[in-house]
């Protein structure tokens, strides 16, 4: 097993494509986007059922990558995300096929 990083970005659905482009630019070899159905942050709760515009929908972007690429992505995401958008976290994971990442 080989050590890699797992980047997890919880972000507004509308802002996600832009963040994803950055991940690609940073050299990450892949990512996967999951839909969220509700959440809480700051003072407000959102949920699909209260917002016909889906404008407060969030998605979760997961990307497994090598340290260099994940750190490159972090730097760029830091600029990109204003103080108002997205929750970014990085954890350590083990993978089987290191060549992929």
């Amino acid at each position, binding site marked *: 097993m080989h050590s890699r990083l797992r980047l997890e970005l919880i*972000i*507004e659905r*509308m*802002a996600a494509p*832009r*963040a994803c482009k950055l991940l690609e630019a940073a050299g990450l070899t892949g990512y996967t986007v999951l839909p969220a159905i509700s959440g809480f942050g700051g*003072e*407000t*709760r*959102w*949920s*699909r*059922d*209260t*917002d*016909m*515009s*889906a*404008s*407060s929908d969030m998605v979760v972007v997961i990307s497994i990558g090598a340290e260099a690429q994940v750190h490159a992505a972090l730097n760029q995401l830091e*600029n*990109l*995300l*204003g103080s*108002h*958008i*997205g929750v970014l976290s990085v954890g350590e994971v083990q993978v089987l096929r290191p060549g992929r990442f």
Partner: protein
Amino acid sequence: MDIALGTLLSPIVLFFLLGLVVALLRSQMTIPEAFAKGLAIYLMMSIGLKGGVAISKGDLGWDAGFVMISAIALSFLLPVIAYALLRTTTRLSEVDAAATAAHYGSISIVTFVAAGQATAAAGLETSGYLVAVAALMEVPAIISALIIAQRGAAQPGSVAGSDRGELAREVLLNASVVVLLGSLLIGWVTGEAGMKTVAPFFVEPFQGVLCLFLLDMGLSAGRGLRNGWRQLGPGTIAFGVYMPLVSASLAAGVAALNEMGPGDAALLITLAASASYIAVPAAMRLALPKAKPSIYLTLSLGITFPFNLIVGLPLYIWLANAISAGAA
């Protein structure tokens, strides 16, 4: 008032109220988002097609062009008034005020549809091109509000560094603009003959679908109110009720100037009075991410939409009748 009672007791209003009450009582019932969104597209295709067929039968004259231009101007202007009112009468921040103002300059297509039903029930005739007017009024208010926000200290700080091209595409090609104008064009091109083949889907079941959709809107409005009302001060709530009246008065003036018939006038007044809760929130989220959705969404969907549906529509029809009687 006969019209008022007729409106209040129409199935669509009753289903809206059912949803509203149920959500306020904290029922968990929901209509799946995918289903409701599918119905929304159906509704827009239907009114687009009907508008297009109506245009194909008559002819678009200069007067339609003038109305369109006035409507665009109205959509640009209303956010300025709304912003000024919000900044002087409420404690909303600059960016929240600008975002909210955009909603009131733009329009609500479901309110428009309900107005179509109400005018028909009141025996008034309407022209197909008003659908185009609706589509044209969606966007200018957004531009107007962004200019206001940029002027103020409130730096937009757009979402995720999105460039202007992306925002413009998002706004100009949003689903309702695209589907309304596209269906209008298709209805225009294929005319009565094309319509006949699709009428059993797009025309006859329309009112029933609207009932189902309004049940969902009632649920959304009720839940939005329950979650968000704390964030709305009394000044903001009042704005959600008097701003439609301000917009309606201005639109009535425009209608009088253009010598519009009572049906068309009622539709234009309703468009001006209505506030967006789909296209504009999405655009604001990209363009003014610092603005709080819980404020503008709750106000537009939770206060102004029900007000327009229940109190506003009969009023606007009465107003439209009054000005065209004056004109005649």
